[in-house]
């Protein structure tokens, strides 16, 4: 604790000894052993990678064979270690080069000025993947901070995607108005879908987890109906494919179509969302109401905050962001929706729950968490192609990281961290108003 911070305390409650300003190494050490959320997250990532390495070792036949050798003769141990290290190294190298940058290609481009698009493709892919994930996760995080579980973000994203695509593919307008209209259409679609659980929760006490979870299925059914019925189905198609966006309603590539990089103006939208969420949660009186409600519903009520309106507003915001994410996904990648939109591994609305957890429901934390998750997913594909280790390992690492973040006590034990558990405890309020 710095000296300035304690000056306010009266003598009898001040710490008995005032430690001198710590030397640089001591302050660095204090940093590494503190329990600040960032430090814990980094340690959790490390543990996740270690856990992934163990999985690689026990599932890759070549590595296992090398280990089996040591039962026959001891001196095979260095070889076994070497093989393990090589395999794990290759896998993680593939994840890194596939999601961030390939150092060799980067050096080549830097020295010769050639082949930049190829060099930047991994980064572009990661950003493309991260953009809608970030937007939907921020929405889920805002709900979490208010003590509300929006498990239906995926369905809201589906409806938002459909609504935005309807505006973007069935109406003709000039770009400067068409794209904003389509984005607003996505937001409204998500809001509409989230308003139902919000209103049910506020006015009847229906539990939002059940309602939002079940609503996902309703939205899938609606999606299939939409892409298979006349006005929205791609003209001349028999399959489950919707109409394609007009060029005036797409999020164009940031560096132009010729660059070949997919990263789009969606990142600008995502940046605006992070800024909005930061203002909402940290700066606005409305967000203060949200946080008070999330931390202590009784005190919120006594302080004149209406739980009903907070619930409805939070669901509208959370659903609106999910809907926006759904449309950004369409407008920055495929430009059309099919029956498999956001299903299975592509269900960013579900990934968003873990991303929000990892980012501690704070906009900036979620920004980093979604970049990490995007990098692992995108890099995982490259790993699968390069080493044959299945893509699912990326999911395993993602899950392990979240698991370790969610159990700070474990991480603290492993790394001998100190400090108040409060700073590191991942707290999701499960308060349910009244009911």
């Amino acid at each position, binding site marked *: 604790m710095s000296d300035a*911070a304690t000056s306010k305390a*009266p003598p009898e409650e001040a710490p008995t000894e005032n430690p001198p300003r710590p030397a640089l190494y001591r302050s660095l050490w204090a940093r590494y052993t503190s329990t600040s959320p960032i430090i814990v997250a980094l340690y959790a990532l490390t543990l996740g990678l270690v856990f992934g390495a163990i999985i690689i070792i026990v599932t890759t036949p070549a590595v296992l064979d090398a280990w089996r050798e040591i039962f026959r003769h001891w001196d095979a141990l260095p070889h076994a270690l070497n093989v393990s290290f090589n395999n794990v190294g290759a896998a993680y190298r593939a994840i890194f080069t596939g999601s961030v940058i390939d150092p060799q290609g980067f050096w080549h481009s830097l020295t010769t000025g050639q082949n930049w698009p190829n060099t930047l493709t991994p980064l572009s892919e990661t950003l493309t993947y991260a953009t809608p994930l970030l937007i939907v996760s921020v929405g889920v995080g805002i709900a979490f901070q208010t003590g509300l579980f929006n498990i239906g973000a995926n369905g809201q994203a589906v409806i938002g995607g459909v609504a935005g695509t309807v505006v973007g593919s069935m109406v003709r307008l000039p770009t400067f108005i068409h794209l904003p209209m389509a984005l607003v259409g996505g937001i409204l679609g998500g809001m509409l879908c989230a308003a139902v659980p919000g209103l049910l929760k506020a006015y009847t006490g229906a539990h939002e987890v059940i309602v939002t979870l079940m609503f996902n299925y309703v939205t899938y059914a609606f999606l299939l109906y939409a892409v298979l019925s006349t006005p929205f189905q791609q003209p001349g198609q028999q399959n489950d494919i919707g109409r394609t966006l007009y060029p005036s309603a797409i999020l164009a590539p940031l560096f132009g179509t010729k660059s070949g990089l997919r990263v789009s103006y969606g990142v600008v939208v995502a940046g605006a969302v992070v800024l909005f969420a930061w203002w909402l949660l940290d700066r*606005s009186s409305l967000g*203060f*109401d949200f*946080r008070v409600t999330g931390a202590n519903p009784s005190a919120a009520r006594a302080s004149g905050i209406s739980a009903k309106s907070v619930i409805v507003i939070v669901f509208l915001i959370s659903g609106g962001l999910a809907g926006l994410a759904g449309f950004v996904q369409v407008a920055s990648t495929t430009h059309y929706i099919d029956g498999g939109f956001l299903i299975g591994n592509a269900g960013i609305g579900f990934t968003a729950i873990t991303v929000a957890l990892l980012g501690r429901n704070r906009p900036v934390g979620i920004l980093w968490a979604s970049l990490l998750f995007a990098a692992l997913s995108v890099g995982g594909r490259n790993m699968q192609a390069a080493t044959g280790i299945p893509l699912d390992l990326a999911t395993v690492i993602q899950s392990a990281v979240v698991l370790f973040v969610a159990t700070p006590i474990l991480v603290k034990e492993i790394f001998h961290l100190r400090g108040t558990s409060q700073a590191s405890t991942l707290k999701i309020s499960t308060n349910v108003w009244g009911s």
Partner: protein
Amino acid sequence: MQLELRGITKRFGSLTANDHISLTVEPGQIHSLLGENGAGKSTLMNVLFGLLSPDEGEILIDGVVTPIHDSGDAVRRGIGMVHQHFMLVPVFTVTENVVLGFEPTKSLDRIDYKRATQEIRELSHRFKLDVDPEATLENLPVGIQQRVEIIKALSHDAELLILDEPTAVLTPQEIEALMEIMRSLAAAGKSILFITHKLKEVKEIADVITVIRLGKVVGTAEPTMSEGELASMMVGRSVNLTVEKTAYDPGETVLEIRDLVVRDDRGLVAVDGVSLDIRAGEVLAVAGVQGNGQTEFVEAIVGMRRVEAGTITLRGVDITNLTPREALDAGLGHIPEDRQRDGLVLSMSVADNLVLNTPRRAPFAKCGTRNFAAINANAERLVHDFDIRTTSIFAPVSSLSGGNQQKVIVARELSRPLEFLVASQPTRGLDVGSIEYVHRQIIEYRNRGNGSLIVTSELDEAYALGDRIAVMYEGKISGVVEPSISRESIGLLMAGSSMAAAGV
């Protein structure tokens, strides 16, 4: 079974919930543990039942020191507990509930319901409990559910039964029946430890009464003692705080309450036709044993509970059934009874808590955006003015001591423009220094010519603060008296006597 507690001490951090408590329960005796809510009764029972381990002291059963490590231990030693909130499964039958956790089995691990049912019938008959073993629990009235708990304890051969506030949930008829059951259990040689804060019941049933207050045994009383004497023992007279007051010079009526009727969470009438006038420049203290409708009364005034009938008027404006927001905006200050639940957000900073109910008021916000310069300046000023001991205005309120947490609430409420102050148990659980500080703040507020209503279960506090004292009993005001009246008279009013009977 003879049970003796010797010097039981249990601390939670800086709070001593039980402070060297000693008592002895003889076989066949109904021993009553009398004390207010928060006096430490439940803590003591949890220690006895092995749910908490004592920091000091020992438990003797039939003269032998017997440590009790967990509730299973307690059950094996013959101690049974009937919790205030029943530990039963609503959709199970009586039999299933009774055998739960200790199922008698026959071959192949099948539960022997036949035997269990038979046992329950016998117990039910022997102690006149009148319970049908095959009934489903949720279809039974509360009084019968409680008997299921008693049967459950008896089926484990309990020799000592702890009844934790058993009458709190019962109707008068059910209470009568419970008393009968307790007598028949005692007659059969079972010891009963009966925890309550209701004087009448204690007088009716107890053989011996131990009064505890603030975690300490205040004394042993005979059931022949008057209710007034018992009440003053319970509420105590040890703290003696006096506050400088200007002469009592009441002005016009500020808050007018007429025929107020309020129901509690269970839908029972908790406040039953209360009428009070509070004038400018006066503190009206509402005294009474906790649980006589004070909580509901205050919640109704500040808009947190629906008013069933009657009116509340603030300076001529009807404020009945406002929302909490409207009540705040009308200028009602509220120091809530449970400060950590209703008054503070523990994880948030001192600065945030100091604007908890005024986040949108100028200058704390502009166009929906919070103005941190103003919020922090406000916090610095209040921390200084109200002597809130904190390392920083950004420290979470949870890091403050109870007294300083309460100062945060007092500072917040008294620093905004108020028409009237309602304070509920404003000094509960505080150390003497903080009590004095909070008292001084309330009196200074009164000296500036404002009206306030202070609900307290501490008689000393009522005397120290009140210009007039209203005594509440079973949802009614049993009398409004001057603070010059004797403690014995107030004690009688608190026990439900009429003004005339109390000699006022």
